[in-house]
Structure formats: structure tokens, C-alpha cells
């Protein structure tokens, strides 16, 4: 049994707990013992991306303390995992005492599909999901963590799942954290282009590795009264 610490992310905790529950089931099915350090809150990305690095450092400090001794930290989010991996060492570049810890925690932090495929070597979780599904590769998972084949491999192994390609899949959906509120109309225009491709794909379900992008996409689908549903990858992998 592989021990892992789940970093569930702030959005999942309060808005999409079913994604966290699915992530726990999937990890357990893959042979992990899941712990949930209850002192965790948010990785600080929302503040960091908006330029508030002091505030982000406070939250990053907390994350480092909470997960200092975790053997592996798994998050159902490419974006939060990327925040820890890419930016924590940057945030503490002038604080030698914390830099080592930041690097060490960063090296132990993984996005869920990344951990399953790259670390555990698992692609088939015995899931069944009878629907036509397309996949939006979230930017930070794709270009930050280099996740291309991992989520796709997991999806292909799901029974009764019909996979369809998403046109222009690698285009950003336009979420971008506070960007979606500050530049709401622009974010909406980028979203609209993404929704057009999702609907053109013929999928009944669009999936991704981040609830942040999915919150934006599903909000747009709902506003359009689209029949397409947005689900996190973990929810599909937990299907049986």
C-alpha cells in the first residue's frame, strides 16, 4: 500500500466535494492509503497569480508545514500541483531555510493522473463510464507539468467510454483565476470559443484535470443551456 497525502484544493473542498471523494476512491482503488491532513487550506495560487506574493507566501508557508513530511502529495488539480512545483521554489528563492523544504515538497507533489500513470504505472482502474467524452487539457497541467498522454491513457482504459477529440484542444479556456473577473468579457469570449469546440466534438461530457477550468466551462455550458456536462477526470475514473 502506497501512502499518499491528498491535497484536495480549496475549490474542491467547498464547491465540488464529490471530486475529492472520487479522487480518494480512485487512489484507494490504485492501491494507495490516503491521508487528508486537515490543516490544509489553499495553495495560494489565486493571490500569487494576481501579484500578491506576500499573501501567497503566507499560504505557501502553511502548505509547506502541513505537507513537510508527506511521502507523496496528490492533488486533483494540475494547476495547484504546478503552483507548488513551479512557483514555491521561486517564492522562497531568497529564504534559504525554506527553499530546501519548498524544493523537497515540490518534488513530492503530483497531479492525480500524473501520480497514477507516472508514479504508480497504473492506467486501468477498472472504471466503467458509458458516455461520449472529450478532454480539455488544462494549461498548467499541459504546459506546466507536461501532461499529455497520462489523462488520455486513463480515459482510454475506461469501459464503455467513447472518446472524441476536442478541436483546438490546447487553446486556453479563458479562466485564469481573477482574470475571469477582471477581464470578464474577454474571458467570456475565450470561453465561448472553447464551448463551440466542445459542442462541435459531439461529446456528452467534457472532462479535465482541474475544477477551476471546469467551473468556468460548466458555468458557460449552463448559461448556454447546453446538454453537455462537465466532469472532473476523477469522477469518470471513479465510475463503476
Amino acid at each position, binding site marked *: 500500500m502506497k501512502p499518499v497525502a491528498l491535497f484536495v484544493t480549496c475549490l474542491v473542498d467547498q464547491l465540488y466535494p464529490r471530486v475529492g471523494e472520487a479522487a480518494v476512491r480512485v487512489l484507494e482503488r490504485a492501491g494507495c492509503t490516503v491521508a487528508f491532513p486537515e490543516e490544509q487550506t489553499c495553495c495560494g495560487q489565486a493571490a500569487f497569480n*494576481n501579484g500578491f506574493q506576500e499573501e501567497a507566501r503566507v499560504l505557501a508557508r502553511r502548505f509547506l508545514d502541513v505537507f513537510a513530511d508527506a511521502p507523496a502529495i496528490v492533488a486533483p488539480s494540475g494547476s495547484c500541483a504546478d503552483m507548488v512545483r513551479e512557483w514555491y521554489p521561486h517564492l522562497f528563492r531568497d529564504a534559504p531555510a525554506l527553499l530546501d523544504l519548498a524544493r523537497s515538497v515540490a518534488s513530492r507533489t503530483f497531479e492525480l493522473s500524473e501520480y497514477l500513470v507516472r508514479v504508480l504505472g497504473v492506467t486501468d482502474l477498472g472504471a466503467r463510464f458509458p458516455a461520449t467524452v472529450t478532454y480539455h487539457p488544462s494549461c498548467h497541467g499541459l504546459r506546466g507539468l507536461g501532461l499529455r498522454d497520462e489523462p488520455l491513457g486513463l480515459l482510454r482504459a475506461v469501459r464503455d467510454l467513447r472518446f472524441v477529440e476536442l478541436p483546438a484542444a490546447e487553446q486556453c479556456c479563458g479562466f485564469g483565476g481573477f482574470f475571469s473577473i477582471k477581464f470578464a468579457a474577454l474571458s467570456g469570449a475565450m470561453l465561448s470559443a472553447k464551448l463551440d469546440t466542445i459542442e462541435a466534438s459531439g461529446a456528452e461530457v467534457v472532462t479535465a484535470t482541474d475544477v477551476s477550468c471546469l467551473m468556468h466551462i460548466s458555468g458557460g455550458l449552463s448559461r448556454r443551456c447546453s446538454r453537455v456536462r462537465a466532469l472532473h477526470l476523477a469522477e469518470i475514473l471513479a465510475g463503476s
Partner: protein
Amino acid sequence: MPDHPTRIDLIRNIERALRDESLQRQMGKAMPASRRARADAVAELPEWESLRSAAAGIKDHVLADLEKYLRQLESQISALGGTVHWAFDAAEARAIITDLARSRGVRRIVKSKSMTTEEIFLNPALEAAGARVVETDLGEYVVQLAGERPSHLIAPVVHKPTEEIADLFVKKLGVPRYERPEELARVAREVLRAEFLAAEMGITGVNFAIAESGTLVIVENEGNARLTTARPRIHVAVMGVEKVLPQLADLSVFLRILARSGTGQRASVYVSLLTGPRRAGETDGPEELHLIILDNGRRRLLADPDLRGALRCIRCGACQNECPVYQHAGGHAYGSVYAGPIGAVLTPAYEGLERARDLPFVSTLCRACADVCPVKIDLPGMLVELRARAVRTGLASWRDRMLVGAWTFFTRSPARFMLAGSLGRLAQRLVARGGKIERLPYPLSGWTAHRTAPVLASTPFRTWWKSRQGEGR
């Protein structure tokens, strides 16, 4: 009056662009086509990644010893009979060039495409000095006729559909309405030929300046830069300090990455290597060659360790083509000569963060730009750094401070986070209908203007987790 007086109103510019259906249609066609062309051209080269590293390495090497290479370039050009002028800022550069035109009685000037001359607002200054200035790159010519500014580094008129160009030619040139791009190009060619023949001065930019030989390299596809440098009596070339390369051999890397990144070509159609003015016994080429080497904020950028990498930029436009924000906002929205991700870095750096405070924020940090940049500029990292500087210097808006302040207050401990959830669940009773929210008050109203918002779950994850642990699973 300063060149850049007021704060760029990015939000208003973007809203205007989003309402412009013809712009949206045009960009929606042009940008994906440019992206595909680049991707195909790059995929042909297995050595692409090593070319990028080599290019970045050469640029860094030059930047680390910039003054040495610039002095070498100056002495080579002087030895060849050319003249080098140093311009600290845009005003100095304009003064040097207008003085050159005035002192030599120049009335007619042709120009080939140059973003650096756009940066220094050269054309109005020359016109005020009594010269007629004509842009000879087709796209720039259209932009000039329309009284606009270029919206893209290498495709200045990418924002304008062909039909609008057809109308513009009818109106400005009095020609019949031609609709095919080839016909429009033929019309422009006929007009411009007379300009080339009559011009006394040709003004160009410089893609690369070779220190060891004093060679100025100009890359183009229309042949107009070659004519601009060959026919008029005087050639004035304008370059930023960062354009210098140590040796001719370096070109083999840069010509390949520039053509493929910029236009998806294997090679650009015309590459002119200009080494000095006309020599005794030669029959063509300019009698005088003047090279203006411009600082205009570049050495300040060079001294900035977090941002100096932006000086590697070779103005290929790949980051613009790839950027989903640029595609929807268009180049003009950025309020300055350099648009897109590189513009969001250069404009604050050159014109001041106060004026351009919103620019670093107009990105989702999707990193598509960083993936395609042929000289590996860490554009997302620089945007993040500029955002932090904006916040540190008190330029963040009241709304940002409030949103981030509330966020960090409530995420500082699990107890506060749970409290926020409880308060949110109470508050959302006022706005939620059927498990979703269609309208939120300020400062979140931007979200629901374009999307439905989710409701907070009745049972947070950590509550579920506790009860699951309690059950002993």
C-alpha cells in the same frame, strides 16, 4: 509633450475590440492559420529545440557583453564609410533622423517595415519636417493609408479584412474596387514603384547587426526593403541596442528560427546583408549609410535581472499568434506599439508600469507563448514578476486588494475556511436558484455576466472525510 502621457485604458480597448465583429472574424481566421503554419514548419526540424537553446544562448552571450559588441559594430561600420549615431531615447532618435533629412534637402522618403521606427513615432516627425514618407511594406502601406498603427509585429494589418482594404484603396487611391489580394498588391506595387524611384532617403529597421563585419541584415518577403536600401541616395537604418550579433555564422541559427516562427516559412524570401554604403567603383547602393542605435529604455531593461531576457526578442510574432488573449483583443487594445505577451512585458518596461499597470494582468498565464518563443523568453514568469511589482508599488486596484485580502484572510486556517463556507452557504440562499447562481453582486458580477456560478456544497469535503473516518470506513 511626452510620447506616452496617460494610462492605457485596457478594459475599454478590449471591450471595443470584442464588439468589433469584423475584427473578431478576421482574427479568428488569421490566428489559427498562423499557428498551424508555424507548427508545421517547426515539426519539420528535429533539431528545433536545440536551435532555440542556441539562439537564446547567443542572445544571452551578447547581452552579457553588449557594449563591447556595439563598439565593435560601430568601428566596423565607420571603417566601411558609414556613420553610427547613438540615440538615448525616441526624441533623440527623431531629432537625428529629421536633421539628416533636413540637412540633405530630402523631400521624399520611402520606408520598409520597422517596429523600432513605430516605437519612436518617426513618421509624424519627418512629415512635420516637410518630408513625404511612404511605407512600402504592403501591410504597413495599408496601415498608413488608413491612418492607423500596426497591430502585429510582422503582420501589421492582420486586424483588417481584405474587403476593408479593397474599400480603402478605392477611397484613397481612386482605383476600381479590386477584391483579390493579388490585385490589391499589384495596385500598391504600381503606386510604390514611383515612390521608390523618386525617394532620396530610404529608412529601414534592422533584424540583426553583425559586429565582426558591420553587416546589417534585413529579413523580408516583399523585396521592398531591398529596394528601400538600394535605390535612394541615403540609407538610414534604425536598430535597438539588442539587435547586435557577434558574427555572421550566428545568422544560420537566427534566420531559421525567425522564418519558421514568424511566418511558417522554411526561409524568408529576401535576406539582405548590407555591409557599408556604396564603395568606389560600385554602381549601386546608397552613397550614405547612417545607423541609429537606439536605447529608449533597453539598457534599463538590461540591468533588470528578472526582465532582461525580454531583450532576446527577435520580433517574430509567434507569441502573438499563439496568445488567446491577443486573438480576441487584437493588437491595438494593448495601447502601444508592442502588443501580445511580449508587449505586455515591454510596454511596462519601456513606458512605465504606472501607465501600463493593467497590461501584465491581461493573460491567463496559459504559457502558450513560452512554448513557442524561439528564443525561450520566460514571458509568463515576467508577467508574474510585473504583477508583483504593480502590487508592491501600490498600483493594484481597490477591488483586487479586497478580493485577495478576503481570500487570504479566509484561507489562513481551516477554521476560518470552514467559517467562510458557512457564511457563504447562508448568503447564497439569497441568490441561488435550482442549485446554481445566475447573478452575483459586485465584485463577482463579472463572473455571472458570462457564466453561471456554482453553489457551495452543502457538505464540504473535509466534513465528509471526518464522518468517513468516524465510521472507520
